[in-house]
């Protein structure tokens, strides 16, 4: 079960209906910070910090796979830094290497936010898969730029 992370994914599930096989089994996970509001439905909310909300109510056997946005952002930054590093150590003149880095990375500066809300209610055996395609595309292309740079410098 996901613990508190920095992407804004909000999951809420009805604790009364957590298992198709054993309806009386209660949900128990010691690895996350759950806020349990005081209402009759006993909804368990795990809060993370990305712009995605998935509400699961009166359902069972629901599988959720989602993009870890924070990890994706960290990975994107790591690749950008690697590009800047390679440029910096191969081009002595700092003015030139700033310009090269700017030109290479200018295509990846735009920020896009995806907000979505998914409601699963009275359902069984459902799989939810969400993907942040914008950041995935950025990461792929940035890696290709790094690989191309390294190949052209005869490093790879």
């Amino acid at each position, binding site marked *: 079960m996901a613990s508190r992370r920095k992407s804004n994914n909000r999951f809420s599930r009805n604790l009364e209906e957590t298992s198709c096989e054993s309806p009386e089994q209660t949900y128990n996970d010691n690895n996350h910070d759950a806020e349990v509001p005081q209402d009759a439905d006993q909804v368990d909310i795990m809060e993370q910090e990305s712009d995605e909300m998935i509400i699961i109510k009166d359902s069972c056997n629901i599988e959720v796979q989602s993009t870890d946005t924070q990890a994706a952002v960290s990975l994107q930054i790591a690749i950008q830094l690697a590009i800047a590093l390679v440029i910096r150590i191969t081009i002595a003149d700092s003015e030139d290497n700033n310009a*090269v880095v700017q030109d290479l990375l200018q295509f990846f500066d735009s920020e896009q936010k995806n907000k979505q809300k998914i409601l699963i209610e009275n359902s069984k055996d459902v799989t939810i898969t969400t993907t942040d395609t914008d950041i995935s595309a950025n990461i792929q292309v940035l890696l290709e730029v790094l690989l191309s740079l390294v190949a052209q410098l005869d490093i790879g």
Partner: protein
Amino acid sequence: MQMNDSSNISNKMIDLLVNDILRKNGVNLESAKGKLSEEQKQQIKELVGDLTKQVNQFLYPAKDNQNNKGK
């Protein structure tokens, strides 16, 4: 086959883009190649290898890593 074709095309486009940016900024590739020691090259290769592995893990995760199942 189509995926490989479009992947090849985008790789070629990126090669052209990188090459053009380097030339536009007056970077001499031959002298840039000579600036790196063998140790630096090896370190960069390892760094790029690690990043490639992380990107593949991110883009094509094993099912177990990102499952959240209500039990």
